[in-house]
C-alpha cells in the first residue's frame, strides 16, 4: 500500500466520521462546527481528486459561506431564546 | 424559436425583479402572451416538419447540451403556456394591492415557467437536474411567499421532499455518467441498449423514485395536500396543473427514452408504478371525500388524478398509450387549474375555507360554481370532456391487453370523483344560513376560472389534433 493511498484512506475515514458527528452531536453548535470541518476535509478530498477548482469553491462556499449561514442562524436562535 | 421559450420568461422575471416589489404585471402579461404564441408556433412547426433540435453553443451532444422538441415536449409546452396566461390574469385580480404574498410574485412565476419550459426541452440528464432545481425552488418560494406559520411549515415540508427527490436523481445521473461517460439522452439510448451493468439499474431506480417523490405519487404524496391546499389560489392552481406534471414528464421521458431497453426487458417493473398509481386513486379520492376544507378537497383530488398517470406504464408498449396519458395530463391540468381558481373565488367570497361554508353560493356566484362543476365533469370523465376521452382511451388500451384491473380502477376512480364533486355542488345549492354574507368578487376571477373549465371540456372535441401532435417522435 502506497503512502498516498494510506493518506486517502485516513482522509476518507475522517470525512465519514465528521459527517456522522455533524448529524449526531447532541449540541447544535458542535454539530455545525463539525459540519465546517467536514467541508474543509471535502476541499482536501477535491484536491486529491485533482479538482482544485472544486476545492477552492468548496472551501469558500461549501464550508465558508454555508458554515457562516448556519452559525448565524444558530446565533439568532440563541438570542431569541434568551 | 424554442430557445426563446426559455429566455423570455427569464428576461421578464429579471426585469420584474428590477422594477421592484409588487411590480411587473404588464411585463409578465406581455411575456406570457408571446410565450403562448411561441409554443403554438413551435407545435405547428413540429407538425409540419418533424422534431426540432438546437445544439446550445453550437457544439452538439455529448460535448455540449442539446435541446430537443418533439411532439411530447411541444404538447407539454403548449399546456403550460395555456394554463399560465389565464392564471396570470386571475392572479392579477386575486392579489390585493400590498398583499405580502405578491411582493415578488411575478419574478417567481417567471423563473418557474423558465424552469418548466427548459425541462420540457432538455435532452441532457444533468441539465434536467438544474431545471428541476429551478422549478422546485421557485415552487417552494411561491408556496412560502408572505405566508403565515402554516404556509411556511408546508413550504419547508415541500422543500425537503423536493430536495431529497432531486438529490436521488442527481446520484442516479452521477452513476450514469460514471458508467457511460455522457449524460446526453440521445447518446445514452443506444449505449444502454447495448449493455447495462447492475449499476445502471440502480441509477434508473434512484432517478425514478426521486422523481416520483417530486410528483407526489402515493405514498410520497404527504407533502402535496398541505402545500397545494395552503398556498394562495393562483399558486395552488399553477402547481397542481403543471408543476407536478413536470417530474412525471421526466419519468416518462426516461422510461421511453434512455431506459426503454430496461423497461421492456423487465415485465414486473412496469407494474410497480401502476400499483402505486392505483393506490393513489383510491387513497386520494377517499381523502377528498372526507376533507372538511375546500382547498384540501381539491388538493387530495390532485393526488388521486396523478395516480391515473402512472397506470400507463404497463400499457406503454401499445400504440396510442402516449396519447392517452397526455390527454389525461391536459384534462387534469386545465380542469384542476379551473377548480383551484374557482375554489379561491368561493373562499374569497364566503370568507371561509370549508365545504360546509359554501351553502348559498349557487345563487350568488353562479359562474364560479358552474366553472367548478364543468371542471368536475372533466375530472369524473363524462362526455364530451377531455377527461372522458382520456379515460376512454385508457380503458380501451387496458382491455385490449386484458388488464382488467386497470380498466376497473379507471371506472371506479371516476365514480369516486363524482362523489366529492357532488359533495361540493350539493352544499352550494343549499339555502344560505341566516346572517351569512357573500362578499362581491372581481368578475375577472369568475370568468378566468370559467374559461379554463370550458377549455377542459371543449378539448374533448378537438382531441385529434393534440393526439396527432403527441405522435410525432
Amino acid at each position, binding site marked *: 500500500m502506497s503512502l*498516498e*493511498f494510506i493518506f*486517502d*484512506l485516513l482522509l*476518507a475515514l475522517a*470525512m*465519514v466520521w465528521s*459527517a456522522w458527528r*455533524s*448529524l449526531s452531536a447532541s449540541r*447544535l453548535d458542535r*454539530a455545525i462546527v463539525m*459540519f465546517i470541518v*467536514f467541508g474543509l476535509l*471535502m476541499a482536501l*478530498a477535491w484536491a*486529491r*481528486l*485533482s*479538482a482544485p*477548482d*472544486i476545492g477552492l*469553491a*468548496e472551501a469558500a*462556499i*461549501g464550508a465558508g*459561506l*454555508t458554515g457562516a*449561514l*448556519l452559525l448565524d*442562524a444558530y446565533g439568532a*436562535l440563541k438570542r431569541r431564546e434568551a | 424559436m424554442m430557445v426563446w421559450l426559455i429566455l423570455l420568461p427569464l428576461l421578464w422575471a429579471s426585469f420584474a425583479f428590477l422594477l421592484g416589489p409588487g411590480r411587473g404585471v404588464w411585463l409578465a402579461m406581455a411575456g406570457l402572451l408571446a410565450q403562448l404564441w411561441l409554443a403554438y408556433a413551435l407545435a405547428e412547426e413540429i407538425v409540419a416538419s418533424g422534431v426540432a433540435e438546437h445544439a446550445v453553443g453550437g457544439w452538439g451532444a455529448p460535448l455540449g447540451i442539446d435541446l430537443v422538441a418533439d411532439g411530447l415536449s411541444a404538447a407539454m409546452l403548449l399546456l403550460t403556456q395555456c394554463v399560465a396566461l389565464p392564471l396570470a390574469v386571475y392572479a392579477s385580480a386575486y392579489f390585493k394591492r400590498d398583499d405580502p404574498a405578491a411582493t415578488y410574485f411575478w419574478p417567481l412565476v417567471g423563473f418557474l415557467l423558465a424552469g418548466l419550459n427548459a425541462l420540457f426541452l432538455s435532452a441532457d440528464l444533468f441539465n434536467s437536474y*438544474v431545471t428541476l*432545481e429551478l422549478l422546485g*425552488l421557485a415552487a417552494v*418560494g411561491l408556496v*412560502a411567499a408572505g405566508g403565515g406559520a*402554516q404556509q*411556511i*411549515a408546508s*413550504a*419547508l415540508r415541500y*422543500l*425537503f421532499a423536493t*430536495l*431529497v427527490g432531486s*438529490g*436521488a436523481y442527481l*446520484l442516479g*445521473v*452521477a452513476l450514469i*455518467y*460514471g458508467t457511460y*461517460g455522457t449524460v446526453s439522452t440521445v447518446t445514452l439510448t443506444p449505449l444502454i441498449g447495448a449493455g447495462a451493468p447492475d449499476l445502471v439499474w440502480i441509477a434508473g431506480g434512484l432517478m425514478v423514485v426521486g422523481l416520483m417523490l417530486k410528483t407526489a405519487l402515493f405514498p410520497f404524496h*404527504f407533502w402535496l*395536500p*398541505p402545500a397545494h391546499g395552503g398556498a394562495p389560489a393562483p399558486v395552488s392552481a399553477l402547481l397542481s396543473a403543471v408543476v407536478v406534471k413536470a417530474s412525471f414528464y421526466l419519468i416518462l421521458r426516461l422510461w421511453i427514452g434512455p431506459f426503454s431497453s430496461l423497461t421492456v426487458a423487465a415485465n414486473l417493473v412496469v407494474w410497480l408504478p401502476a400499483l402505486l398509481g392505483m393506490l393513489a386513486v383510491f387513497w386520494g379520492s377517499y381523502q377528498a371525500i372526507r*376533507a*372538511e376544507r375546500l382547498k*384540501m378537497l381539491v388538493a387530495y383530488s390532485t393526488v388521486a388524478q396523478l395516480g391515473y398517470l402512472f397506470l400507463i406504464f404497463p400499457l406503454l408498449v401499445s400504440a396510442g398509450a402516449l396519447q392517452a396519458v397526455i390527454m389525461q395530463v391536459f384534462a387534469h391540468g386545465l380542469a384542476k387549474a379551473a377548480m383551484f381558481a374557482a375554489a379561491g373565488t368561493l373562499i374569497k367570497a364566503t370568507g371561509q375555507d370549508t365545504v360546509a361554508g359554501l351553502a348559498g353560493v349557487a345563487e350568488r356566484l353562479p359562474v364560479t360554481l358552474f366553472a367548478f362543476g364543468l371542471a368536475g365533469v372533466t375530472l369524473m370523465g363524462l362526455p364530451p370532456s377531455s377527461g372522458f376521452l382520456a379515460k376512454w382511451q385508457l380503458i380501451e388500451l387496458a382491455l385490449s391487453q386484458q388488464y382488467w384491473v386497470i380498466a376497473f380502477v379507471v371506472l371506479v376512480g371516476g365514480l369516486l370523483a363524482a362523489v366529492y364533486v357532488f359533495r361540493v355542488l350539493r352544499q352550494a345549492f343549499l339555502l344560505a344560513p341566516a346572517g351569512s354574507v357573500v362578499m362581491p368578487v372581481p368578475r375577472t376571477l369568475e370568468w378566468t376560472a370559467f374559461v379554463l373549465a370550458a377549455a377542459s371540456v371543449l378539448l374533448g372535441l378537438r382531441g385529434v389534433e393534440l393526439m396527432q401532435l403527441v405522435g410525432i417522435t
Partner: protein
Amino acid sequence: MTGELLFASVGVILFALGVAGVLLIGHLLRRVLAFNVMGSGAFLVLVGLAQRNGIADPVPQAMVLTGIVVAVAATALALALVRRLYVLTGKLELSQDDDE
C-alpha cells in the same frame, strides 16, 4: 482500488447517511446539515466514479461546481424558511399532525 474509487465509495456512504438524516432528524437546522451531507456524497460519486481510471475529467468537475452553487442556494432558502418559522411559532420542528 484507486483513490478515486475510494472517494466515490465515501460518497455513497455520505449520501446514504444524509438521506437517513433527512428522514429521521426532526430538528430543522440539523436536517439542513443532513441535506448538505447528502449533496456532498452525490458530488463525490460524480467526480470519483468518472475519474476511476485516474484521468482528470473537467466535465463532471464543472457539474459539481454548478451543483455546489445550487446547494448553497437551497441551503440559504431552507435557513430563511426555518428562521421565519421560528419567529412565527417558536418551533424548530414540523409537527406530524398539521396536515389537516
